[in-house]
């Protein structure tokens, strides 16, 4: 942390924290974003379905419905400002049995009240639009979309950073206390003073909230496991395909999601677990994912799977209670200028822009924020060479030999993109950092081909030592050292 004093400290660099940081960077105010991991988006933000929801599950009038609707209608614009992929694929909520059809009308009723555009469609429509999907009827939502959740989080952070927000990675908050008129935020890397604290700590938001005298909420971690299918399977469907939400399960049910990269995701499961950081996957659940996915899409086979992963929802009700709970975004009972965001789970990605706006308005009410005329709303991401038309490719390759070398052959990523990823403004230089920024290692060979090459670029172009090259976390060293000449 560069300074002693800040106006506002945001705790948590997930999609919500970074969206708030970006929103605040429109104003003349000193903002510090504190993230305990060595990159942004390391919690649920990196491991969700990447869906921009159209808002038909949250009850009318709820905060969740409001911020979700705001997000849905602004997402395309935000993604275009921030150079983040966005695709309006539309969604089908499919009734596989006759008796589920009534529930579709229920969903449509809630959704329309929230302002979503929704239609009930029959078997013919499903057959025509998604011939591989089996269902009796469906609710069709044309405004549902997909994005890249990691690229978005990174883009929010980079845009905020470019507009003056300081981002302190690898920084863990240990204690927050009131010191005169300010808050003292003690971290494992020193102490700062700030006028406002925004607790956007996701799975740890209850722990952070406790520093503000807020003890009414407890996080119940709820894991969602996913399967990723090979791009070869992408022809099987092109829209989001969801089941009718299972009753009282607290999740949306296992669904099929096309990704902006061209894969299909199966998941997530819904498992309450004991520990907030247990991101394991399990055989039982993975077997279940395949089984349930095949209910909609019988052509899915196990050998299409290239990866499994899981993310953890921060729920604020225990499994035995279940049902709907709204997002909690409120001033702490003790201090007005300590804002807690608790229980931000699905549709947290869609809602992030709305939440950011909501939080900034809360602050603006307390302290008139002054607009920063120099605010730049656009941010340029890494040029995705292979997506460009050939003329443009030739032009780039002409000037820069690094565009002539394809490093990741599954995703067709050039050496220049790897270098760009390693040169990111946040200074992240892990293998996963490259993955989330340039997509390398994300394909069917899972780095089997490109990893050795990326390592070589890290060594040759960035002078990194073998022993300091990490997968993701600070202790996730990839290698033991040199094979020869080691000792």
């Amino acid at each position, binding site marked *: 942390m560069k300074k002693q004093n800040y106006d506002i400290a945001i705790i948590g660099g997930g999609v919500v924290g970074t969206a708030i940081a970006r929103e605040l960077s429109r104003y003349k105010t000193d903002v510090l974003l504190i993230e305990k991991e060595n990159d942004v988006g390391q919690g649920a933000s990196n491991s969700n379905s990447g869906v921009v929801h159209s808002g038909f599950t949250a009850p009318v009038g709820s905060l969740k419905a409001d911020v979700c609707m705001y997000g849905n209608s602004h997402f395309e614009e935000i993604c275009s400002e921030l150079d983040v992929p966005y695709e309006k694929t539309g969604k089908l909520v499919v009734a596989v049995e006759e008796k589920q059809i009534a529930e579709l009308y229920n969903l449509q009723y809630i959704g329309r009240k929230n302002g979503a555009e929704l239609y009930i469609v029959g078997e013919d429509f499903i057959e025509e639009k998604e011939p591989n999907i089996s269902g009796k009827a469906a609710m069709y939502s044309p405004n549902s979309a997909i994005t890249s959740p990691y690229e978005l989080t990174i883009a929010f952070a980079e845009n905020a950073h470019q507009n003056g927000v300081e981002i302190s990675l690898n920084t863990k908050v240990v204690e927050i206390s009131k010191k005169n008129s300010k808050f003292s935020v003690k971290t494992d890397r020193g102490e700062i003073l700030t006028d406002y604290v925004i607790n956007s700590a996701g799975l740890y938001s209850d722990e952070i909230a406790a520093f503000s005298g807020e003890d009414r909420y407890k996080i119940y971690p709820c894991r969602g496991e996913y399967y990723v299918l090979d791009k070869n399977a992408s022809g099987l469907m092109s829209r989001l395909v969801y089941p009718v939400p299972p009753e009282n399960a607290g999740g949306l049910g296992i669904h099929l999601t096309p990704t902006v990269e061209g894969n299909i995701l199966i998941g997530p499961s819904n498992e309450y677990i004991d520990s907030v950081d247990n991101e394991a996957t399990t055989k039982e659940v993975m077997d279940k994912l395949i089984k349930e996915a095949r209910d909609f899409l019988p052509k899915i086979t196990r050998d299409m799977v290239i990866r499994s992963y899981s993310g953890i929802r921060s729920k604020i009700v225990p499994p035995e209670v279940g049902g709907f709970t709204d997002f909690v975004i409120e001033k702490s009972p003790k201090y007005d200028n300590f804002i807690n965001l608790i229980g931000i789970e699905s549709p947290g990605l869609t809602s992030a822009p709305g939440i950011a706006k909501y939080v900034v308005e809360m602050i603006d009410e307390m302290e008139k924020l002054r607009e920063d005329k120099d605010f730049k709303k656009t941010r340029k991401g890494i040029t995705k060479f292979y997506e460009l038309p050939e003329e443009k490719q030739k032009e780039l390759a002409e000037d820069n030999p690094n565009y002539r070398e394809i490093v990741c052959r599954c995703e067709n990523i050039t050496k220049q993109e790897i270098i760009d990823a390693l040169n990111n403004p946040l200074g992240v230089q892990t293998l996963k950092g490259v993955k989330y920024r340039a997509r390398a290692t994300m394909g069917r060979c899972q780095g089997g081909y490109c990893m050795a090459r990326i390592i070589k670029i890290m060594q040759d172009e960035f002078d990194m030592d073998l022993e300091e090259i990490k997968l993701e976390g600070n202790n996730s060293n990839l290698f033991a050292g040199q*094979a*020869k*000449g*080691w*000792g």
Partner: protein
Amino acid sequence: MTEEKDISCILCPNGCDIKIKYLDDEIIEIEGALCPKGNDYAKQEIKNPMRTLTSSVMVEGGDTSLVSVKTDKPVPLEKVMDIMDVIDDLRVKAPVSVGDVILDSPAGLDCSIVATREVKINI
């Protein structure tokens, strides 16, 4: 006491299963090999197993940082690690051609370490 041992021959992909009965150094019975080399191999295995060691050695100034190497003849299995120790910190200068002798008599053994690939000078 006579001893009995089952040995899978490693000389070729046939991988013959050879049964050998012996008393100290004396072979009493041997069967299962498809060729005479197999019998010799089995006898050697009883006495003193021999292996060709393959590894790599660091290269300076080459277009690659390692050159793959082997012992030009089989060496006693029990001596393999001694050779590994000797070549761990060894460095050769590029260029290297296939068959070049990298080191004679490693660990005092009757063999040479030879290159199994070429390494050009890095330009």
